[in-house]
């Protein structure tokens, strides 16, 4: 979808060596992918991004969008086909929210009625009530609300490509997490190709299908988050992603991908013998007792029932340490384990139904494995 070839930018500084803000950058981002530009301040992320919509003229190299050389397109037309979001939001104070969202559709002389409808739809997607907000002015919105409008304004003319320069940088952490989630959900539906500048590694891991890490205008590595975390190309990347990169990988894996499904689920009225057999067969050291609705009620371990005979599961049960939702990630699971001082947790779904359990042991072994793509199942 977007291909950069030997993209280079020299900023001429009178009386000094030119600053090389982009040095032979080549990369490709596929349709519908979110690629995060990451790197220390001044490494050239913004420059690389702005060359794509020609806000900064490039010195040399090529930019292809959808196979078309952007040199052949005029800047104004190109920009109207690319959504653009900046950190300072840049809503126009003189226009209502509705006119702000419809700026590009109006520039393109699209049907007014349709674009207003689209504006309402987009507002619904980011949980803002159109009947309340459309007629307001930007200054009558909170920062987080304005930033949401900034994002949907870029989407209003349905451009295939979205450029975002630290779009959530000015928002407080809690709101930021919410907007990130909203954005991911929205883009799962819209399937835009997104280039996204960030200098927050955690944001990059959370949002990115790909991460491109820059240093001094050079693209050091461009890979999936998992690949970058498990196989950093050089010591710079290693340092940049942090010594806890193994832990960061945990956020990439959902609990549901690591769960041991229904392993050794037992009922209160089962005999100890049956429980012990189950655990031995599955080669695990604990069994979870489920109630009539399928909820986890307690557990027992092999050590606890060693040597006991003739009883029922219900008599030997210990209370469960807590639960973890199947849609949470392994990072959440590990921290829950620390909270409850245990080395395993039962996994539940939305209804609280028991789905299986995860253990520290499994998590550790998953991290040791070769890099994985998101969505791979544990076998």
């Amino acid at each position, binding site marked *: 979808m977007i291909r950069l070839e030997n993209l280079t930018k020299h900023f001429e500084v009178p009386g000094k060596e030119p600053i090389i803000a982009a040095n032979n950058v080549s990369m490709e981002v596929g349709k519908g992918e979110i690629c995060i530009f990451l790197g220390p301040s001044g490494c050239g992320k913004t420059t690389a991004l702005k060359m794509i919509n020609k806000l900064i003229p490039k010195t040399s190299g090529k930019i292809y969008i959808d196979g078309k050389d952007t040199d052949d397109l005029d800047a104004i037309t190109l920009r109207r086909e690319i959504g653009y979001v900046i950190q300072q939001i840049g809503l126009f104070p003189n226009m209502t929210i509705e006119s702000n969202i419809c700026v590009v559709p109006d520039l393109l002389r699209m049907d007014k009625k349709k674009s207003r409808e689209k504006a309402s739809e987009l507002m619904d997607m980011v949980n803002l009530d159109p009947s309340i907000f459309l007629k307001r002015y930007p*200054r*009558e919105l909170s920062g987080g609300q304005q930033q949401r409008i900034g994002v949907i304004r870029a989407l209003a003319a349905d451009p295939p490509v979205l450029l975002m320069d630290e779009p959530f940088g000015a928002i407080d952490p809690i709101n930021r997490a919410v907007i990130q989630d909203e954005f991911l959900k929205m883009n799962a539906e819209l399937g835009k190709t997104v280039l996204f500048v960030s200098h927050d590694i955690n944001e990059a891991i959370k949002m990115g299908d790909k991460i491109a890490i820059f240093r001094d205008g050079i693209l050091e590595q461009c890979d999936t988050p998992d690949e970058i975390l498990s196989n950093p190309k050089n010591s710079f990347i290693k340092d940049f992603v942090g010594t806890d990169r193994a832990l960061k990988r945990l956020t990439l894996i959902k609990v549901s991908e690591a769960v041991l499904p229904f392993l050794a689920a037992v009922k209160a009225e089962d005999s100890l013998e049956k429980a012990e057999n189950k655990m031995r067969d599955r080669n695990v050291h604990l069994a979870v007792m489920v109630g009539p609705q399928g909820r986890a009620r307690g557990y027992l371990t092999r050590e606890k029932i060693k040597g006991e005979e003739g009883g029922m599961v219900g008599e030997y049960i210990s209370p469960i340490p807590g639960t973890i939702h199947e849609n949470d990630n392994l990072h959440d699971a590990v921290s829950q384990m620390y909270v409850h001082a245990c080395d395993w947790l039962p996994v539940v779904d939305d209804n609280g139904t028991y789905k299986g359990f995860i253990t520290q042991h499994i998590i550790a072994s998953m991290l040791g494995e070769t890099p994985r793509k998101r969505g791979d199942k544990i076998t």
Partner: protein
Amino acid sequence: MNYIIELIKRSRSLSFYILLALIFLSGVFSESTGLIKEFLDTFDDWIYLLRQNMLIVFTSGITATFLGIGSGILMSRPWFRRYSNIFAQGFNVLSAVPTLAVLALIMTVTGIGFKSAFIGLLTVTILPVVRNTYQGISEVPEHMIEAARGQGMTDQQILWKVQIPNALYVISAGVRTGFALNVGTSPLITLIAADSLGEYIFTGIQLNEFNSLLIGSLSVAALAIITDFILTKLQFWLIPKGVNPLRFT
């Protein structure tokens, strides 16, 4: 001290009574000094001078507003950028020049009469208009312009859809200042032989005629206050809500 504050605070009705009393007293006063008689005797003159005064204020003010906004916009254009700083400095310095000095200098070029008066009032009005227009446009934050450019607006569209609308309030403040200076200077044009309400005042001073003095002064003061009042209202209602601090809640 606090007592006085309290008193002033509760003065809504109080000030109303004071106003009534003042009106009554001034009525008595003007009757006894013959102010009203004098006013009625010279009523035709008054109407004529008022009309002339309003005419020149209005025409020179409007002309200055349009010329001023136009020049301010030109000054903010990229191709003018390298000179605009010098110009802005120049306008700053010039706006310190007293209005009587402006009239004096223009008189040396175009002599006396309506033409000089018109040019003088225009000059006085145009300075704040140009200054505020330029300032208002160049103060539109860079990131907002980047956002506009990033959405694919042409330079013209950025100017008309983003820069000017967001500068409107500052521009309107310049127009208000310009008109205030204009009305304030308008009685002085009597000195260079143009008709205005200043005639009452300067005659009054020369002949020590308090009635004439009062008629002139009150009329000029009322004209100034009403002009400013109208402009304030226009400013309130004409500047769009999103960029009008007067309407921020």
